[in-house]
């Protein structure tokens, strides 16, 4: 029997430990997870489950006091412990991330077009004019109206939904193979959230990028994910193909999460 090809992202025995003063918290424990190319994996958990820490550890974005153990391999290459120079080449171009709060990811002092063109200039080595053209194309891809005008604005002049689109544009402009998303729609109104989720689906189909999405909302995961994992207290307690998890949850915590999930009776 031939060995299966290594998945795009392969996490084994991941552990994240925060130490402050005399207190130690294990945010993530012994986590194993695979993400195949083009796949969408949704990780659900409540606050304190460690889902955000898990995501941040992939790109080395954890705060200084955190200790990370285990292995995170991308295309077979180990990410944990990579020197910053190597990590920077991967961040933004091969693995990109979208955050919950776009204002914290966008530089308030730079115009949209300047921030967007950073990635093609730094990673793609493009000249300014060409990079700006790419930036405008990215804005069109995320369906921002009047892209030329919006590109010359500053983040605070945009609405919440538009800022989130800009952040998605920034993430996708380097044509990454893997997109990490940390609660990307939590801060948005429900109608804007619906727009962004549809956008993410469309972009994934177009670019073939894999998506590792972290959220507390099972509804989002039901819409987007091929496979779902449930985190509790730092452990990944269950993972299964999407429909199977919803229909036949095995862990009692998963069952209680599904039961507590708000749902409309008889959706319109």
């Amino acid at each position: 029997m031939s060995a299966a090809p290594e998945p795009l992202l392969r996490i084994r025995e991941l552990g994240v430990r925060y130490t402050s003063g005399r207190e130690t918290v294990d945010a993530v424990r012994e986590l194993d997870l695979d993400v195949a190319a083009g796949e969408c994996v949704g990780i659900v958990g409540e606050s304190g489950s460690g889902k955000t820490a898990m995501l941040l550890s992939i790109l080395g974005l954890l705060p200084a006091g955190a200790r990370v153990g285990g292995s995170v391999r991308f295309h077979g290459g180990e990410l944990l412990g990579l020197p910053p120079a190597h990590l920077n080449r991967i961040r933004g171009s091969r693995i990109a991330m979208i955050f919950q709060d776009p204002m914290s990811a966008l530089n308030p002092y730079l115009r949209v077009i300047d921030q967007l063109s950073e990635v093609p200039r730094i990673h793609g080595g493009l000249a300014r004019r060409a990079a700006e053209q790419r930036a405008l194309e990215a804005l069109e891809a995320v369906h921002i109206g009047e892209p030329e005008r919006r590109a010359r604005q500053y983040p605070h002049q945009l609405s919440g939904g538009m800022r989130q689109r800009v952040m998605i544009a920034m993430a996708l402009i380097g044509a990454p193979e893997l997109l990490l998303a940390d609660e990307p729609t939590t801060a948005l109104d429900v109608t804007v959230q619906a727009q962004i989720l549809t956008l993410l689906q469309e972009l994934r189909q177009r670019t073939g990028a894999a998506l590792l999405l972290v959220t507390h909302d099972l509804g989002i995961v039901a819409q987007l994910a091929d496979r779902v994992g449930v985190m509790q207290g730092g452990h990944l307690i269950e993972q299964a193909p999407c429909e199977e998890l919803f229909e036949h949850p095995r862990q009692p915590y998963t069952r209680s999460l599904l039961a507590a999930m708000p749902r409309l009776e008889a959706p319109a």
Partner: protein
Amino acid sequence: MSTTALNAAAMGAGAPAPLLAVHELRVSYAVRHAGRLVRARALDGVSFDLERAGSLGIVGESGSGKSTLARALLRLIPAEAGTVRLRELDLLALRGAQLRRARRHVQMVFQDGVAALDPRQRIGQALEEPLEALRPEMSGSQRRARVHSVLARVGLEPAHLERYPHQLSGGQAQRIGIARALMIEPEILVCDEPLSSLDVSIKAQITALLQQLKAELQLSLIFIAHDLPAVQRLCDRVLVLYLGRVMELAPSDVLFRAPRHPYTRALLQAVPVPDPRIARTRRITPLSGEIPSSLAPPSGCVFRTRCPLAVARCAQEVPLLRHLGGSEVACHRAEEL
């Protein structure tokens, strides 16, 4: 016809008067925009009734004016125009000691339970305070007895009385918030997004608690939220707000089953469904655009900039709230939905 008159007509003559009647409530505030001071209208002529022991859900996205409505009802911010009648008394016209006495009837649960508590005050003190302020005739031991009894009702232990707010979890803090609001036995409880800052499993607990308390104490509830499933569970009527104006007002089962307003329909469709078979197969076009700024509301119907049914008339004429089936809708083309 005014909403109140319509309600009276619909219910038939001899129906009991509503406990709370809000009529043409208008709230605006000054804001600095492009160097000048301008007025933004947060609420523009909102009217609704609340029955005794009834529960009204108020939904809408950010910028809809929901929180402004809660604060205006509680007299935390000034209203520009309109009346809020509690039986015969217009709450907006009261001042000073009269206003404080009226607070016995209407209380509020805030969005962030921890932030709504004084960080320097022990929980026990915080709970006794409403009694000290509004029921001065009670003795110390009577107050403490009441605190203990309400605490038990919201499912907490006396040990919590000694703690400080930062030592409470989100769910516990919200229970304390509810307990504090119930201390003086109000008739009306206004909840301003009480579930927003809570984890999923805690949301369900608090919703259940509110349901239980509503039934036990015959509370009239105004539940403000953007969380539609919770509103469906808790409220018998729903009011949909968009940019400070009422889009639809209907009994809960009617609204969720057959929404009459295009915005209501869009809201319902946008709620994620935690069932992959449904979520992946349904074809829904999400509503385009975003809510306009209250500094520059669209002419005519404020929803027209995002409405799939908008026509020329929508820009020229403000649609009034009118009866359609069992609901009240503010839409020129509601029949065609």
